[in-house]
């Protein structure tokens, strides 16, 4: 019988106060913590062998006025039980002034993910070496992946306003 998830839950609960751990199933553990604990939790996981940051994703909870960041951690390891694990470290930050410390010191490959989140959700990562645009060329008033960004209105205001060349010639 496989108890990796339950074991990990006990380990995390014994090392941190004020943390909420859910064992979704034995290979998927979700950890909810405050934003000042993120780096501590991630480096704890790294030390216990989960050394691969798969992805950082973000969820916009517009009714709670909060953004939820999800760090997905797994492991490169020979141990089959550990290698199958997926750990979701979740933290919530306020939507109005989203700020968080970067986790590049722990996982170096977080850099492009954080740049992307900065661009699409407007989250400011303190200590990030270059928070420059990654994909987008235009500037948006509201970052475009937030729920209150109205894509249809934006399209009508920007792309639909550009006239066809034939119309333009006819008008003049």
């Amino acid at each position, binding site marked *: 019988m496989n108890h990796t998830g339950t074991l990990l839950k006990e380990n995390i609960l014994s090392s941190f106060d004020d943390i909420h751990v859910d064992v979704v199933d034995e290979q998927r553990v979700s950890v909810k913590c405050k934003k000042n604990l993120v780096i501590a939790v991630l480096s704890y996981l790294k030390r216990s062998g989960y050394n691969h940051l798969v992805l950082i994703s973000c969820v916009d909870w517009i009714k709670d006025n909060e953004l939820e960041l999800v760090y997905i951690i797994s492991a490169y390891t020979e141990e089959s039980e550990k290698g199958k694990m997926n750990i979701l470290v979740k933290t919530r930050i306020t939507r109005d002034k989203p700020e968080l410390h970067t986790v590049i010191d722990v996982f170096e490959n977080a850099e492009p993910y954080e740049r992307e989140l900065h661009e699409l959700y407007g989250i400011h990562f303190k200590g990030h070496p270059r928070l420059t645009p990654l*994909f*987008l*060329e*235009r500037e*948006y008033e509201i970052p*475009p992946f937030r729920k209150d*960004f109205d*894509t*249809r209105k*934006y*399209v009508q205001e*920007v*792309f*639909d306003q*550009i*006239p*066809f*060349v034939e119309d*333009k*010639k006819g008008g003049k």
Partner: protein
Amino acid sequence: MDRNKLGKWLQSPGKMAQKYSLHVLYFCTGCGIIEIPPSITTRWDAERFGVIPVATPRQANLFLITGYVSVKTLRFIIRSYEQMPEPKFTVGFGSCPINGGMYWDSYNTIKHLDKYIPVDGWIAGCMPRPEAVFVAVTHLWTLIDKGMADGYKKYREDYQYYRENQEKILGKLEWPPLFSNIENERK
């Protein structure tokens, strides 16, 4: 050579040569490029129609835009198009360059490609089959025969309108106008 076409060859050798040596620049913007490898390789051998893929815009005279055009790629599409020698023809491949397709309300894809560069023909579909490429090529032949594939002439004539539209989306362009002298003459 087809003997029936001998008259045409003698009448307008330039047009016939343009027709049967379409060197294609594939702009791999989106999913449409998936249809291109089968159409240029043995299954639907594109060289039967004189269609050959080339490496750079400087060698090409048919510009095939395969898939959606995001704001960032529009900049490079314009640059590549301006580098191509005349006569040049553009074909939009798939429904995304026509009117946005499934990205009609996206925040970062442009909806009508012909607002920014002249487009001679469209291949509708999402995605079009490789056969559709050849249908488009044969249509393009008739257009060239009748002198209706004149997108590059339009670009020359209406360059200032096109440039205005481009600058509205991309901000200030970092390269100088292609046809500055013509613009000045008109003024």
